[in-house]
């Protein structure tokens, strides 16, 4: 609970930019900074019971990268989040609680239509949804107050379950724009096209993508697997403190899954975290989660360690929702 104390005892608001999003190897110092700004934006609060469960299982888990419990820094704290579809006002999220600490890997599983994608889209500020209650604190700041691009610049990245096509916009131009937006935010000079090409070129290997994908329009005519790789390429180029990967594994062949998992693992540091949504244990075997959450009808109904995936695979969701 060290973070809570820091939160209250933080320095005055005359602070440098509240965060330093990471896009290059140099690490951001968001730990201190986030503690600073959290004093302005969020009152201290108790972590939910569920997050405690999660922390416990994280300790037990051999794959845990987080250190001792009291040294953990929360990266994302979601409390009682409710959201509706903007157009119809139909409620999809019905009180989601979740805490992700630095360096942790979380997985969300759950039946089709249980609200997993909605949850991740709400986190990045998708206009299709309206938040009706609850709070989301990311690196100590109120995420819900931020524009989608600010959330991205703050270090939140979501790879879409179904990335859309943008006809007429070149893939490399798109990446270039996004990367320069990030550099601008960091106060660094923007890169020219050639410098950017030099920067991005090695990243292509990471996701095993051919150069000509750069000159095609964003996702236009891409196969399902190619779109997913393209999302991971964006993640590799932009970096993130928290990467939300929505079904990054569906539609991937076995080799592609290995490539993507390798890329994601390669991007992990002790400080950044992953929240992945998946239906399959396959992915969880290559990217080992700290804990697994089960979502049902807009809520997280169970949290456990990676053994939960095995139970699920053997007995199905009924065994869990019955509890």
């Amino acid at each position, binding site marked *: 609970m060290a973070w809570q104390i820091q939160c209250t005892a933080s320095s005055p608001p005359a602070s440098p930019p509240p965060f330093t999003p990471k896009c290059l190897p140099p690490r951001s110092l968001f730990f201190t900074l986030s503690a600073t700004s959290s004093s302005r934006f969020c009152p201290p609060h108790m972590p939910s019971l569920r997050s405690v469960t999660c922390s416990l299982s994280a300790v037990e888990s051999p794959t845990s990268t987080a250190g001792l419990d009291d040294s953990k820094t929360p990266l994302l704290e979601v409390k009682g989040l409710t959201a509706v579809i903007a*157009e119809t006002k139909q409620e999809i999220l019905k009180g989601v609680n979740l805490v992700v600490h630095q360096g942790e890997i979380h997985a969300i599983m759950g039946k089709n239509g249980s609200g997993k994608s909605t949850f991740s889209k709400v986190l*990045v*500020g*998708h*206009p299709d949804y309206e938040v009706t209650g609850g709070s989301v604190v990311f690196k100590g700041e109120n995420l819900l107050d931020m*524009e*989608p*691009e600010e959330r*991205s*610049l703050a270090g939140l990245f*979501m790879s*879409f379950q179904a*990335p*859309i096509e*943008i*006809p*007429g*916009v070149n893939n490399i*131009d*798109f990446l270039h*724009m*996004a990367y320069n*937006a*990030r550099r601008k*935010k960091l106060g660094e000079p923007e890169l020219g096209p050639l410098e950017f090409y030099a920067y991005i070129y090695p990243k292509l290997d990471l996701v095993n993508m051919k150069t000509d994908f750069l000159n095609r*329009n*964003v996702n*236009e*005519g891409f196969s399902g697997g190619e779109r997913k790789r393209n999302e991971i390429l*964006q993640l590799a180029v*932009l970096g993130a403190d928290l990467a939300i990967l929505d079904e990054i594994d569906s539609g991937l062949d076995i080799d592609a899954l290995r490539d993507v998992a390798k890329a994601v693992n390669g991007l992990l540091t002790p400080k950044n975290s992953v929240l992945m949504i998946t239906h399959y244990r396959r992915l969880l075997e290559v990217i080992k989660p700290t804990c697994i959450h089960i979502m049902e009808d807009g809520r997280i109904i169970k949290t456990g360690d990676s053994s939960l995936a095995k139970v699920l695979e053997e007995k199905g969701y009924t065994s869990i929702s019955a509890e």
Partner: protein
Amino acid sequence: MTTAEKSRKKHYKENTARERMISFCGELERWEPRPYPCRCFVLCFRPLCPLANSEFASPSPLRKSTAQPWCCLLRRAAGLSRSSMAALAFTHQNFLQFTPKLTPSKPKLKPKRTKTKLSIQTIPTSPQASFTDQFVLQLADSLEDSLPSSSSLPLQKLRDNSSETLVSTQWPSRKDESFRFTDTSFIKNSDIKPISRPPESLAFLDVSSDAQFKSFDFVDGFLVDSSFDSSNFPDGVYVGSLLKLSSEGILKRVCEFLGDFEWGDLFWSVNGLGAPDVTVVYVPEGCRVENPIYLKYISVEGGDGGSKKMPVSNPRVFVLVEKGGEVGIVEEFVGKEGSECYWTNSVLEVVVGEGGKVRHSYVQRQSLSAAHIKWTSVRQESTSTYELVEVSTGGKLSRHNVHVQQVGSDTVTELTTFHLSVGDQTQDLHSRIILDHPRGYSQQLHKCIVAHSSGQAVFDGNVKVNRYAQQTDAGQLTRSLLLEPRATVNVKPNLQIIADDVKCSHGAAISDLEDSQLFYFQARGIDLETARKALVFSFGAEVIDRLPYAFVQKQAKDHVKELLESTGKGSS
């Protein structure tokens, strides 16, 4: 089909299905991005049209569209003359009008309008000599006086015919169907002055030309001799003045076609009377010309923005590609810096012989105070190909009339056009593709952006699939992007199908930028304004990318970017 083509096709299909669709046959509608509900309906002549029976929902809370799918099959007995066909069109209108199903969504359809329609369709174009228009007579006189009489027979014949037609033609008014949304009074109210000679000094011509290809320069409608350089072309190719054409053979061929066109309007005739010369591009049988023929039209004489003075130039080019020949034509229209108020009234005639191919690039970036009227008339013999890519951004009033006439089977026609209005501008495309023979393929994509509250875009795209044009594959799609509250677009895509074994699709979409696409940018940290700019630009880039020559493409891209930047209307 190449993959690119396939993906393009697929993309159209998806767009066609996904977008808010507004399709019209024969009915011109006015659309403005106002916060009141728009009505739209879908009307197809074919029962198998993909648009029929589809629901189109509008994601925008601003404009809820209620789509009223409608379908009717137009079957007819053979052997109807043109006028009876018009009668059929009339019946069709009636049919529409009195169909109760349609009434709730289209209460505005009044019989009055139908009548206007009928008169237009029955009288193909040839103006009736009811009474003369004094203004037009004066204009004709001044055009005649501005030029020395010509010793060239074909040119003199062209002038005589044009003059004869002009006497009985009226200046178009908003009552004329084809000028219903295009106000030409701006030209009429100016002090029109035919330009009788090219400027003395041509020092401004960019001799060092960084362009990869040397241009043939037209200054105020006159082809500049010094810009001649035919040596790069294969034997038998002629590019130059009709007056200086020495080959009897070519002259004879040119005379067969020159000015032979029944669909022209007043502006066509004004050009015929006012053209100082005809520039001939002749490609002999089986000859493939590698480098494009780059025609650059520069307006030098012209008043400043506020002046009433309006010098008019009438450049005219005639392209004849014999059997199996291939050529690329690049037309670029610009104004010299400082010259703002002028009128370019240009005509291009193209004849593509059997199996021949013409790639036509047309870039219009006149001054924003200029008037620009252009005719492109194309005659396609069997198995020939004609591809047009147009990017028009200039002119206070800019109108392109395209007429493609199929005179043999198995032709390929592609029209891809992009219009941009960043100011108080009207951009107008009137196109007509007439298919009279079997197995023709025609694809048309028209896109326009209106980025100014008093800007306007007009599109009237007619595709006629006549009785013998069986197994025609014709598609037409128009998409418009309105970026300002009062920006206006008037679209009338219309497919008239009489043959019964054809594959046709058409559609029109008027949209704002897509929220989901904007969000994708934002989700990657790009702010809304930058995202909007990129998307607006990419909307036009789809067309610009199809310009077949890199140097033309780059110029057009830079220019469009600059215009969008200058207004800042990429964002708002």
